C-alpha cells in the first residue's frame, strides 16, 4: 500500500452531524420530484402516466438500453405530473410498500443473476459519480479484476453519511461487500477507511469476526484529502498511477462506495430498489445537523425541516461535499441518487473574497496530488496558451480543488483550470476516453 502523500489536511467539521448518533427518518414530504437523468448513461423514459397510483418502490421509469438504470418511486401516492425530464408524485402519506418488496429466501450466488438484480434495483455509484453499478460490475468481470475496494474514506469535510452507515449497519455493509465481490468476480474485497473513523473500523472487524467472511478485509488510510477519490485509492492499492483516462480495471481494481454495498445488500436480500439513501444534512447554518434516510426526489427544504431548519441565512447550498460538490440555486432542487449531503454554508466558510495577486508561494504545487503546477496552468488558461497547457499536462487535473483551498491569494485555480479543460482542449479530451470519476466517497 502506498497512501497519498501529497494533497492537503482539511478541517473535518464532522463532529456536529456525528453528535446525532443515528440515521433518522425525515418527516414525510408531500411532493417527490424524480429527475430522469440521475445516472450517467443512456436516457430512460417514464413508464407511468399522470394519475396512476404508485407504491414505494414501484418502477416509474426505465430504459431499453442495457446500460440504463431504472428509477423507482420513493413514496406511495398518485403521479401528479410527468414531464420529459421528471416525474412528480404526490404522497398519500400511507407509505405502502410495493408488493414486490419482500425478503428473498434464497440469495443467488450466480454473478450474472446478482448483476441482473442490481440493475433492476436501480443501483448507481452512490459516492458521487452516479455511474451505473451493473455496468461497472460487468466491465470488471470481463476485464478480470482481483480486488474490489469499498470506499469508506469520506475524506471531504462535513460528510458523515458513509461513516454513520458503517456504524449503524455494519453487517449489511459486510454482506453487501461480499455480494458485490461475487458479482464483480474479484478475489477479495477491501473496505478502505480513513483513520478518523476507527470506531467504524472496529465495528466492522468485530462483526466480521463472527460473520467469518474471509474474503472481506479492512484497511486504514491516513486522513488526507483527496484520499477518497477513486484515482488516489487505486494508486494507493495498486502502487501505480493511472494514466489520464485509464480505467482502474487495467490494474485489476474496482472501486465502489460502501453505501453502494449497503444498497446492493438491500436490493439482493430484501428485493428493495434504491429509493432512499443516507444523506448528511450539515453546515453551520443548520440548527441540528443529522444523517437522514432521504427519499430520492425529496427537496432540500423538506430535509432541512427535519433538522429544525436554518438558523441563519446561508451563503451557498451545496449538494455533496464542500470540495467537489455542486452549488444549487434554490431549496427546491430535488436530490438525486448521487447526492451524499446537503450543506448550508455561511459566508465566512464559503465566500473566499476578492482575488489577489499571486505571490508564487508554491503551496498549490505542494498540494496537487497529480504533481501538476496549478499556478502555471491557471496562468496559461487565462492567456489561452494551449501549447503551454499541453506541456504542463492540463488533462491530468482531477479537479479535486486542493490548489484553490491552499491558495493564500484566493485565486480560483481549480475553477479556472476546469474552464480551460472544458473550452480550450475540448477536441483532445473527446478523442480520449473520458474520465470515470467517483468524485468522492
Amino acid at each position, binding site marked *: 500500500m502506498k497512501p497519498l502523500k501529497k494533497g492537503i489536511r*482539511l478541517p473535518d467539521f464532522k463532529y456536529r452531524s456525528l453528535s446525532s448518533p443515528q440515521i433518522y427518518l425525515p418527516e414525510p414530504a408531500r411532493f417527490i420530484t424524480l429527475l430522469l437523468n440521475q445516472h450517467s448513461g443512456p436516457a430512460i423514459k417514464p413508464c407511468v402516466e399522470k394519475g396512476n397510483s404508485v407504491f414505494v418502490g414501484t418502477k416509474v421509469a426505465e430504459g431499453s438500453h442495457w446500460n440504463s438504470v431504472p428509477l423507482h418511486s420513493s413514496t406511495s401516492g398518485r403521479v401528479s405530473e410527468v414531464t420529459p425530464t421528471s416525474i412528480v408524485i404526490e404522497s398519500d402519506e400511507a407509505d405502502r410498500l410495493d408488493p414486490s418488496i419482500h425478503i428473498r429466501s434464497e440469495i443467488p450466488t450466480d454473478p450474472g443473476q446478482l448483476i441482473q438484480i442490481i440493475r433492476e434495483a436501480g443501483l448507481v455509484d452512490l459516492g458521487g459519480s452516479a455511474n451505473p453499478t451493473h455496468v461497472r460490475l460487468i466491465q470488471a468481470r470481463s476485464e478480470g479484476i482481483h480486488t474490489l475496494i469499498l470506499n469508506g474514506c469520506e475524506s471531504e*469535510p462535513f460528510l458523515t453519511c458513509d461513516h454513520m452507515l458503517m456504524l449503524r449497519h455494519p453487517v449489511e455493509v459486510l454482506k453487501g461487500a461480499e455480494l458485490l465481490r461475487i458479482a464483480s468476480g474479484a478475489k477479495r474485497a477491501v473496505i478502505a477507511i480513513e483513520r478518523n473513523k476507527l470506531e467504524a473500523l472496529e465495528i466492522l472487524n468485530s462483526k466480521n469476526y463472527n460473520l467469518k467472511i474471509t474474503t472481506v478485509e479492512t484497511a486504514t488510510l491516513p486522513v488526507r484529502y483527496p484520499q477518497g477519490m477513486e484515482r488516489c485509492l487505486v494508486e494507493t492499492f495498486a502502487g501505480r*498511477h493511472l*494514466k489520464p483516462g485509464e480505467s482502474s480495471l487495467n490494474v485489476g481494481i474496482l472501486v465502489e462506495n460502501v453505501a453502494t454495498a449497503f444498497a446492493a445488500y438491500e436490493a439482493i436480500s430484501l428485493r428493495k430498489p434504491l429509493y432512499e439513501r443516507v444523506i448528511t444534512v450539515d453546515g453551520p447554518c443548520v440548527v441540528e445537523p443529522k444523517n437522514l434516510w432521504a427519499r430520492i426526489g425529496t427537496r432540500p*427544504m423538506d430535509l*432541512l*425541516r427535519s433538522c*429544525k*431548519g*436554518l*438558523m*441563519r441565512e*446561508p*451563503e*451557498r*447550498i*451545496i449538494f455533496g461535499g*464542500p*470540495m*467537489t*460538490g455542486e*452549488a*444549487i*440555486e*434554490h*431549496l*427546491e432542487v430535488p436530490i438525486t441518487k448521487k447526492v451524499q449531503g446537503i*450543506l448550508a*454554508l455561511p459566508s465566512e*466558510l*464559503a*465566500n473566499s*473574497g476578492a482575488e*489577489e*495577486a499571486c*505571490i*508564487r*508561494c*508554491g*503551496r498549490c*504545487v*505542494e498540494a496537487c496530488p497529480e*504533481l*501538476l*503546477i496549478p*499556478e*502555471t496552468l491557471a496562468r496559461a488558461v487565462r492567456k489561452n496558451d494551449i501549447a503551454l497547457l499541453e506541456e504542463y*499536462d492540463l*488533462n*491530468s487535473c482531477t479537479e479535486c*480543488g486542493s490548489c*484553490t*483551498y*491552499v491558495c*493564500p*491569494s*484566493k485565486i*480560483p485555480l*481549480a*475553477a479556472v483550470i476546469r474552464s480551460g479543460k472544458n473550452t480550450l482542449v475540448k477536441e483532445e479530451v473527446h478523442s480520449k476516453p473520458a474520465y470515470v470519476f467517483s468524485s468522492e466517497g
Partner: protein
Amino acid sequence: MSSLLKGKGEKLFPLVLGPHLKGISSSRTMIWGISAALLPIWISSFIAFGWNSLRVLALTVICAAAFEFGFRVLTAQKQKLKDGSAILTGALLGLLLPPTASWQATVVGVFIAIVIGKEMFGGLGQNLFHPALAGYVALHALFPQETASFSQTVSAAISQLFFENRLDLPSGPSVFSILIAGVILLLRKWIFWQAPLFYLTAAALTSYLIGHVPIYGFMNGSVFFCAFFLVTDGATTPITKRGRCIFAATAGVLTASFFSWMSWMESVVFSVLLMNAVNPLLDRFVRPQSKGLR
C-alpha cells in the same frame, strides 16, 4: 419553523464552482507577518546605531509606500498598499543600507527598488529580480562611498559572531536576532524550511572547501539574512520545491565563492541576483513531471 426556509423565487443562491470551502491562509497575512517578523532585527540594529537606524527604516518604508502609491496613481492602476508588499520591500532595503546612508541615497535606492524593480514588472509577484536587492545594487553603483564595503575582520570568536552587532549586514544586527526572525517565519510556515537549510549548508561546505578562515566565517549577518529573507522570496525563486532547493544551494555555493573577491554583503547580493536571472529557466526545466505524463 424557521422563516429562512423559503421556496423558489424568494431566495436564489449563487451557482458558483467549487471548492466551496475557504482556505485559512491569506497572502496579506503572510506579507504583513514577514514584515512584522523583521522586528527583532530592527531592534538589534537599534541597539547598535540608535535613532539613526530608525531614521533609515522610517525613510525607506514611507518612501516605498509613497512611490508605489504615486506610480499607481500615475499609471491609473488599483491601489495595492494594503497587501503590504511595498512596506516589506522598504523594510528589507532598510536593513541592507548602513544607518549612515544619506537621505538622498536612500530615496534613490527606494525609488529604484519599488518603481523599477517591482512596479514596472507588473507589481507583486511579477518581478524578475528581488526589488530590495535591485535597489541596493543601484545604490552600490551610484553612491559607492555610501554603501562602501564593510569587510570587518572575521577573526572573532564564534560567540562574538553570533551575539554581537556586526557590520556584515550594513544595518548592524546580530546573527542571533536574524535567527529569531527566521524561526518565526519557519514556525508560521510562511517559508519552506528547505531553502534556508540548503542555502546555509551549501555556503558552509563551499566555504570549507575553498578554505576561508575561520571556517565558521560564513555565519554572519548577511548570509543568514539572505537565507531567511532573500532566497525564500516567492516571486523571485522557482515555484516548485525542487527548484527552490536547487536555487538555494546554487546561491549558497556562489555566495561563498564570491567571498574570495568581495565582502560577504556583496557576494550575497550578487549571487542572489544572478540566480534570480536564471529563475525562469529553473521554473521551466526543474519541475516534477506530472504523474499523467510519466
